[in-house]
């Protein structure tokens, strides 16, 4: 871990009870959902982490508690540091407070997390799908969403796949 990152991680541990893991110099801190907004605000104001470069999620499907980890990657341009905060959440449609108040870039990133994983963000100014059409049901990047592929059409199964395809006649 970088020397200048150690006091910051210590602050997180004491103030929010965050545990951390380190892998090849990169630090991931697990934070509880109640503390996440405060942690982001502290890191942005007191420790100069101005850039939220990634807001995404991971689905650990067969394991249901926690099922998702929401990941916030923070960069400090002044000090040249990166820090990752992970929020473990569970359940079918978990809810988290929105980070648009802290980082404006959270606006579209949280829409993408909602669209792909189904994690809702409370008090989000524009809660709608961003990448998929509005009408689809389900959230595509979850592990239990069907792959949605079409069987490759070879000559032996040409007719049966042909019957299933919706052709536009006119």
């Amino acid at each position: 871990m970088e020397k200048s990152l150690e006091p910051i991680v210590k602050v997180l541990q004491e103030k929010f009870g965050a545990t951390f893991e380190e892998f090849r110099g990169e630090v991931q801190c697990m934070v509880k959902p109640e503390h996440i907004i405060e942690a982001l605000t502290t890191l942005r104001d007191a420790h100069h982490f101005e850039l939220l470069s990634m807001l995404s999620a991971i689905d650990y499907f067969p394991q249901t508690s926690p099922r998702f980890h929401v990941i916030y990657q923070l960069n400090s341009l002044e000090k040249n540091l990166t820090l990752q905060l992970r929020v473990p959440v569970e359940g079918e449609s978990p809810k988290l407070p929105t980070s648009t108040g802290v980082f404006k870039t959270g606006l579209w990133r949280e829409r993408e997390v909602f669209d792909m994983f189904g994690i809702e963000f409370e008090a989000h100014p524009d809660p709608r799908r961003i990448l998929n059409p509005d009408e689809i049901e389900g959230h595509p990047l979850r592990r239990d969403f069907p792959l949605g592929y079409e069987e490759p059409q070879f000559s032996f199964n040409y007719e049966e796949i042909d019957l299933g395809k919706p052709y536009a006649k006119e």
Partner: protein
Amino acid sequence: MGVEQKLGNMGVVTTTLEDVVNWSRTNAMWPMLFGLACCAIEMMAAQASSYDMSRFGMELMRASPRQSDLMIVAGRVSKKMGPVLRRLYDQMPEPKWVIAMGDCASCGGVFNNYAIYQGVDEIVPVDVFVAGCPPRPEALIHGVLTLHEKVKADRFIANAAEKK
């Protein structure tokens, strides 16, 4: 001293109405700008000076569907873009043709998943498929010439008479 020579001296040509109409349709077919993804680059290359498509009549590409008669679907069509494509196709006046350029427009290409249409012929009826990822400009021009042959062979008066 046949009929053709006599008529030729007078500057008169005899032909059928279908041939004339189809000839004029092929020689001034204006494509609509519909480059969606990487195939659009090859479409631009085909339109530019090295492989000139203007020599085949496609002098300009109209951005408005109301003023074009050929839609070259160049690139992958996602499920979100589908209704837009269909609406633009419906806004084109008859007669209209569609070329599906590239693998993604013909059959979904490398993208076999929930978000991409497996071939644009699920939405609009396609006349010519051009294979390639992306097809070279010469391949696109070959597709255009195949479409010209198809248009020249179109017996629309006979078809209209049959429908009645």
